[in-house]
């Protein structure tokens, strides 16, 4: 299938391109840009007038809930959400049931995800067996099965010696280790940022030191092991500063932020809204400001959806009993655009944080419109706003603090390997 994408504004951060031109897709790859490739005859034409044509989004954290939590979401429902959100590659954390700690599970997931209209799925392998923080997983085997990184999802490794060994072992094979920095003791029973809001609402707080102390441990071990470390879901201003300082001292650590944390803070808990129950918690306004700036100046390398579909029964509970997490695959692009507009950032720069930058962290050939690259493409109308509602969300999870909000940026077409995976014409 050869596709001619006409009249769009092509934004390809990887190549510094932001210009109105045409794009040509053939054999699942980008066949040409601006100039018609020799002998190209389109089977289909996509009219991208008024739209932005950019690489498909790369999401560093999306829970698909398989295996084990199929009552919350299925591959089918979440892949529909990904396509509708313009997301064409995604990493899924290993906190499935059972966790992704055996090659068979990883192979099964990759096999289930092997449909042309499905985004590319990159399972993050469990770093320790059952995520229990005791025994290392067979990382080399898992890597062969398709894992490009190893992590613990939101589960901390309590025993620092195990953490050191895990990082050493991963470094042996140059496997990246993805870790969330949260001290399990300081975060114990905590459900909200330890500040005025938690105090008023009588919620158990998680202090910023839960993040900074865990960060100090991880960064120190990263220096010692020389391994590649990626810090997931940074939540505080102090945390960003530590990562920046570590980088200046030569530790090549990267980090990401969840898209919710760019827009919300602990005040958004309001009257105990369970939708604002997230992990890590929404922190203070000053932290949000630092996260927004950090992502803009590159201290934070990427923004991810941290997509976590949760069923209503598990969400409609008193705040502390509600399951943390929010559905966000379809909101990653709109919320990134909203952040960019509010920060007055050019789209070229903003879109890098959801395309080539996360692709580099994941180490995949994606997030670019270079000729020859896989034709993973997102076409969206930046001026078209839509209201987030339970009905419009494709994800089985309807749990988002943005319900009822108007957001910019409606995806018109999503191409995965040159295959039309989503089109508003279908809807």
């Amino acid at each position, binding site marked *: 299938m050869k596709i001619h994408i006409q009249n769009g504004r092509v934004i390809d951060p990887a190549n510094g391109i932001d210009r109105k031109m045409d794009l040509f897709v053939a054999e699942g790859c980008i066949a040409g840009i601006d100039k018609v490739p020799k002998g190209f005859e389109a089977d289909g034409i996509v009219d991208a007038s008024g739209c932005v044509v950019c690489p498909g989004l790369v999401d560093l954290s999306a829970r698909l809930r398989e295996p084990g939590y199929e009552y919350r979401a299925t591959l089918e429902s979440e892949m529909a959400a990904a396509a509708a959100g313009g997301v064409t590659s995604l990493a899924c954390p290993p906190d499935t049931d059972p966790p992704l700690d055996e090659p068979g599970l990883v192979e099964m997931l990759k096999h289930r995800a092997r449909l042309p209209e499905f985004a590319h799925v990159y399972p993050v392998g469990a770093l320790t067996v059952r995520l229990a923080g005791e025994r290392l997983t067979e990382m080399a085997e898992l890597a062969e099965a398709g894992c490009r990184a190893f992590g613990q999802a939101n589960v901390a490794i309590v025993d620092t010696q195990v953490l050191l060994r895990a990082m050493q072992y991963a470094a042996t094979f140059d496997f990246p280790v993805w870790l969330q920095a949260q001290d399990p003791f300081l975060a114990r029973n905590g459900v909200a940022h330890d500040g005025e809001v938690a105090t008023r609402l*009588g919620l158990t707080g998680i202090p910023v030191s839960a993040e900074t102390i865990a960060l100090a441990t991880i960064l120190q071990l990263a220096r010692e092991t020389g391994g590649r470390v990626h810090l997931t879901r940074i939540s505080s201003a102090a945390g960003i500063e530590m990562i920046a300082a570590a980088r200046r001292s030569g530790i090549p650590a990267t980090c990401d932020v969840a898209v919710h944390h760019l827009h919300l803070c602990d005040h958004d808990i309001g009257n105990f809204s369970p939708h604002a129950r997230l992990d890590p918690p929404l922190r203070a306004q000053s932290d949000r400001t630092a996260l927004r700036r950090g992502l803009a100046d590159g201290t934070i390398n990427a923004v991810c959806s941290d997509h976590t579909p949760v069923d209503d029964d598990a969400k409609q509970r008193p705040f502390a009993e509600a399951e943390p997490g929010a559905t966000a695959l379809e909101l990653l692009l709109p919320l990134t655009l909203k952040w960019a507009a509010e920060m007055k950032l050019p789209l070229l720069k903003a879109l890098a944080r959801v395309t080539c930058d996360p692709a580099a962290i994941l180490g995949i050939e994606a997030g670019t419109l270079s000729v020859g690259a896989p034709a993973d493409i997102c076409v969206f109308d930046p001026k078209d706003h839509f209201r987030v509602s339970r009905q419009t969300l494709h994800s089985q999870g309807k749990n988002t603090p943005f319900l009822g909000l108007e957001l910019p940026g409606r995806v018109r077409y999503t191409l995965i390997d040159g295959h039309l995976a989503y089109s508003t014409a279908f809807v």
Partner: protein
Amino acid sequence: MRNLQLNSHGELQHLLTIEGLPRTMLTAILDNAAPFTEVAEREVKKLPLLRGKSVFNLFFENSTRTRTTFEIAAKRLSADVINLNINTSSASKGETLLDTIDNLAAMQADMFVVRHQSSGAPFLIAEHLAATGLDHIHVVNAGDGSHAHPTQALLDMYTIRHYKRDFTQLTVAVIGDILHSRVARSQIHALTTLGVPEVRVIAPKTLLPASVERLGVRVFHDMHEGLRGVDVVMMLRLQNERMNGALLPSPQEFFKSYGLTPEKLAQAKPDAIVMHPGPMNRGVEIDSAVADGTHSVILPQVTFGIAVRMAVMSMLAGA
């Protein structure tokens, strides 16, 4: 943020927290409670204000005292009272909180009095009732997690007004486990709303929540200093499970520094009153000589508590 507690006419729809209620509303509740104190002294202690109404006491966390005072208050208003002790084990057998609420609503409940171990549970119930078109059912928060215990704070305010008349000239100290106390939070909001110029909290750092000064209080760690010149001393109960561990080394050591003794009380004004929400741990947060002494108004608090709860229930039923 929408104030869930008031209806479109500004009347009390639910009582969930003191925070955000206007001073006039608090004063109105206290004013309405006054005549109910006389009912208790009558031969026939009943009024027909809630006749034909069903009040469900939903206690997800055990409490004999609070449940009993709500029950007495509702019965004196001629309501039918149904007591439900829903312990956590039956809740964990599968029925969610909102399922329970739907079922009880289907039994034509008019009012839910809710005690729950999780902060915010009564908000969830009130929001659910609104979302399902059942907002004629009123919710009274009888204590949720560490968040709020508004009727306790109101009865405390009634007691203070009874003995001290004018809130705007007072210095009040709240002492003990502020961190875990829903009573303290509601008291602080009530005191600041009613115009008390100086509200103090006295506690070790382990028992104070983050940024507590943002609630409008002065923080003290020393009892002698904190009690100096105080008109009202409000003690809090220290839960057993907090006494031996990382928060406090022992009940004895707590008593040494923060237990209210006649000697420490001497720092307060000579006519200071001493309050406690009960049940008391004698020898832990309060010395028996103080609890039973001339400054203590702990038993009148209990009596006023029934009148205040009658006032709240009758106002809700009238809304």
